[in-house]
Every structure is written in C-alpha cells, then in structure tokens.
C-alpha cells in the first residue's frame, strides 16, 4: 500500500521558483508519489487531455495559480469545465496565489471546481492539513 497521500499532483504556475519550492515541499512531506508541472493554463489543458487520451494517471490534486501569461487560472477553469467529465471526476483543484484581491478570492470560491483557496507561499503545515 502506498504511503503517499496522493498519486499524482499537478502544479500550474509560471513561476519556476515557486514550482521548485512546492515540488520540494511535496516530496519532503511524502504528499504525492509523482509531481508534474505546467507553466500556463493552456499547457495544463494540453497535459490533461494528453494524459486522458493515453490512458495515463490523471492528477488527484491540482495547485492552480491565478495570474499567468497566455491563460490565467480563471480562464483555465472556464476551459476545464468543457473537458470530458472523466478527466475531472477524480481531480480536486486548490487555487494557490499571492493575490490580495477579494474579487479573486470570491471568484475562486464560487467555482464548483475549486476545493480550496490558499495563499502563497505553500508551507508544510498547510500541506499536511490538506485532506
């Protein structure tokens, strides 16, 4: 039986330093067996479709940044809604951002796909508290 909390976690963030730190934290906490990363919402949609088509393990959990070039976190959610339901059925999304905007927070919390909103930086106690 796996000792990891999750099988696969996907980080969607254009900030390489954030991704690097978050990957390290996730590894250190034994949070996920595998960790993948995408640098924009559009890359993430491609990643999800590709995993689905090739019948590979889809992420159990996605950490989604808001402000990203090409396609931001909210645009990602709009497009995510159009994906095959099988892609979404076992995936939860946590928005992870350093936004100060209440508008962003409310928008995130009103999305049916967003399980939780977290402020950056991600820390080990916060990670451990994720169910």
């Amino acid at each position, binding site marked *: 039986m796996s000792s990891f909390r999750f099988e696969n976690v996907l980080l969607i963030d254009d*900030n*390489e330093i954030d991704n*690097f730190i978050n990957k*390290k934290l996730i590894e250190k906490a034994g949070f996920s067996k595998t960790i993948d990363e995408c640098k924009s919402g559009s890359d993430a949609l491609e990643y999800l479709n590709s995993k689905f088509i090739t019948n590979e393990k889809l992420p159990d959990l996605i950490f989604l940044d808001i*402000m990203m070039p090409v396609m931001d976190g909210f645009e990602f959610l709009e497009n995510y809604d159009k994906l095959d339901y099988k892609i979404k059925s076992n995936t939860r999304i946590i928005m992870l951002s350093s936004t*100060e905007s209440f508008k962003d927070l409310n928008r995130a919390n009103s999305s049916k796909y967003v399980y939780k909103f977290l402020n950056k*930086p991600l820390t080990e106690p916060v990670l451990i508290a994720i169910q």
Partner: protein
Amino acid sequence: MAHLSKGIDITLLQELSGNSTEFVLEMLRMYLTQLPEAMSELEENLTDNNYKRISEIAHRIKPNFAYIGMPETTELMQKLERLGRDQAGDPEIKTIINNLGGVISNTLLEIHNVIENLH
C-alpha cells in the same frame, strides 16, 4: 534600502528543504537567471508603457523575494503590482523599477557570495 544592509537570508529556504545544501544551491542558481530576466522584462515593458504586464511581472516575482528574506522588496513588488494594475502611467512606477535595478544587482552579488560560502 533597509534590507541591503541586512543581506539576503536563506533560513526559510533551509527550513523548506530540511537543510538540504543541494536544494538551497539549486534555488539560488535559479535566482541568478530569474532575477535579471525579470528585470529586463520590467524595463522593456516600461519602455512600451505596458503597465498591465508590469503588474503581472511584479506579481510573479513578489514571492521570490520573500523566500530569501527580503520583505521590503516583496512589499515594493506588491506596490508595483497595484500601481501597474490601477494607476497606469504613475511616475512612481518608473522610480520603483529604476530602484529595483540596484536592489537586484546587490542581491545577485550577495547570492554569489552565499553560493561560494555554501560550497
């Protein structure tokens, strides 16, 4: 600026990595490429009066300064993010970006020193 006399602080990076020198070195090497790139992007977008993009870049790099113990610069990026988003053309945007150039140059020197000492 106040933090320049204090220097960078890698305590948080050490804590996050469980005191892995390898991790801290890898992180700091990323800063050596990421910070100059971000600075160039800010300068280019200032020339182009692209304040929306300036706000986005400030938002992106804001946490990077927090990781290396530079709260004043994190706050400065917060301010730049707000100004770029809400007050396009405000002369303070140019002042902040110009000051940031000096801050980043000093930070890069400090990072080089820390890397050397960690080896």
